[in-house]
């Protein structure tokens, strides 16, 4: 008897929920867009917001969003992908690499747009990536012009010798950027040392070592750094070691200067792509991956002043 009651109780609950929500017919020209984001931090949040703003501007009430955040958990990325695909959303925005990979594993039919992804070829295991993913995947890349970032270090610190490259070893994108930038820096005559840390727990120790041994520190577009800029700032500012950052959010927290992409703009550009796909104006399989529309040289006025760094022409201050 008791067992039967235990079994019946959830069933009754379920039926109650079921009866409360009448089956709703979907309006013909309305769209449901699923958003799967890996973790919340400034850059990813900005990209999601830009995406939503672009679509809402274009489609108004006709678009609804199902926004899910995996809280940094890889298994949850898969659960979210399953949830969005099973609910048959019209389009999926995958914000950050694991979110894209999980979504791409889940469906070959529903269009998937990625954003905040550095290298689509690496993320999706494509050997012959030529700028267009094909199939049901496209999106925007957050790859900053790394050669110009290296040149920026040369412009700002011509007398420096040792550059420390600080990044999270858990992020494939960071390693890619660091290795590329290292090549450019070495041709400019700097000696480079890699300082990989595994997570926020050993960031402080590694950053201290990096600050002791380097004249300048470079950090790429790194999710873990983006969440922990305070730690780096507390170490590098007292040590008087300037930090050049891969993007604006990190520069705002701990950097001196950056050649930055704006994640809001990047998300907005992704939103415009989504609009073209939803309205049928473009076929996702033919859409090449888009890059950030514009780059801006920016500096962090507060830290520059404290380290008495004079910023050359052409840099604009980050407004906090």
């Amino acid at each position, binding site marked *: 008897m008791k067992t039967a009651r235990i079994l019946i109780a959830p069933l009754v609950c379920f039926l109650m929920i079921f009866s409360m929500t009448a089956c709703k017919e979907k309006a013909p020209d309305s769209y449901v867009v699923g958003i799967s984001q890996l973790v919340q931090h400034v850059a990813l949040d900005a990209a999601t917001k830009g995406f939503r703003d672009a679509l809402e501007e274009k489609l108004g009430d006709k678009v609804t969003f199902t926004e899910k955040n995996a809280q*940094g958990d890889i298994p949850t990325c898969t659960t979210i992908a399953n949830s969005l695909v099973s609910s048959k959303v019209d389009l999926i925005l995958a914000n950050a690499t694991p979110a894209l*990979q999980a979504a791409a*594993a889940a469906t070959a039919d529903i269009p998937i747009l990625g954003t905040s992804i550095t290298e689509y070829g690496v993320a999706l295991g494509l050997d012959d990536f030529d700028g267009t993913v094909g199939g049901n995947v496209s999106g925007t890349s957050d790859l900053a012009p790394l050669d110009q970032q290296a040149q920026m270090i040369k412009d700002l610190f011509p007398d420096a010798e040792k550059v420390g490259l600080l990044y999270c070893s858990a992020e494939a994108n960071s390693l890619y950027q660091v290795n590329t930038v290292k090549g450019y820096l070495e041709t400019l005559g700097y000696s480079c040392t890699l300082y990989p840390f595994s997570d926020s727990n050993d960031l402080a120790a590694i950053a201290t070592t990096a600050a002791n041994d380097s004249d300048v520190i470079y950090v790429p577009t790194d999710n873990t750094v983006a969440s922990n800029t305070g730690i780096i700032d507390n170490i590098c500012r007292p040590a008087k070691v300037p930090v050049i950052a891969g993007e604006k959010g990190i520069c705002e927290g701990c950097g001196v200067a950056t050649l930055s992409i704006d994640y809001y703009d990047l998300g907005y550009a992704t939103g415009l792509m989504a609009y073209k796909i939803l309205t049928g104006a473009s076929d996702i399989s033919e859409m090449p991956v888009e890059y950030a529309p514009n780059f801006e040289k920016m500096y962090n006025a507060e830290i520059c002043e404290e380290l008495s760094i004079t910023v050359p022409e052409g840099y604009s201050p980050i407004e906090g």
Partner: protein
Amino acid sequence: MTLNPLDLIAQMPGALAQGLIWGIMAIGVYITYKILNIADLTVDGSLCTGGAVCVVMIMNGYGVTLSLVAAFAAGLITGLATGIFHVFFGISAILAGILTQLALWSVNLVIMGRANQSINVNNYDLLVSLRYLQEVMKGARPFYWSPIFVVGIFVLIIVAVLYWFFGTELGSSVRATGANANMARAQGINTDSNKILGLMLSNGMVALSGALLTQYQGFADINMGRGAIVIGLAAVIIGEILFFKFFKNFALRMLSVVLGAVIYFVVIQTVLWLNFDSNYLKLFSALVVAIFLAVPYWKKKFTPFSPKRKGDADCA
């Protein structure tokens, strides 16, 4: 946005498949946590090791079967490492697991070559994939390609093999070691080697689960095992609370642990469906586990007298 129960129903096969894959991992946790009476934290690392080995093997052209075997073997080695730390270095089990987990971070990075390695279902013949699940439901693939079916068969085979193994003399001595180490030693059982064997077997299961998981989700990531032990323990506890009362048989108990993992993922999927602010997702997971842990305690506390309290039947 209104909640559509049909959506939830459509999402259940995915939760079921994911739960079954994690169920294999939960069997691994069950071996250490319940049979050996050791809380082994190696799993956070060995899950990823299994995935990493599997992805790299498949990418280099080895078949899926061989890749799964290699992943299982790699898991055995991680368990051996923890066992050696514990038995020969005299480090407490929990710390030995943490040490191996720490070391595996670097090992996994070396195996994969970078932090995230994709295994695209378009390019390789994988055994299980979230993609297949959708295709089976649309009728594009026959039912036996469904991950639920494939992993279900896997689970049954694993349970059968483990049931046989724990019935052999060797398996029985592992169980005796966990139940009462002093008594086992008095009977002439080498408890040290049995602990190592249990840890190896457990991490082999976890790595096998990791190998299936990478294929299912389409990538291996250095962070994929983070918090795995929590999911494993949750599965064991949910299975124990809900089913151990009816399932006294050892094989059925392993199955109920798998069901525990399935229920965990069904709950997570439902929470996501409810459109809760996902910032509360982890709080919710913790609460679910806490409630499952508390129910038997409350039952005991608030039931005035239980006439049929026999001996502790939990020593599996």
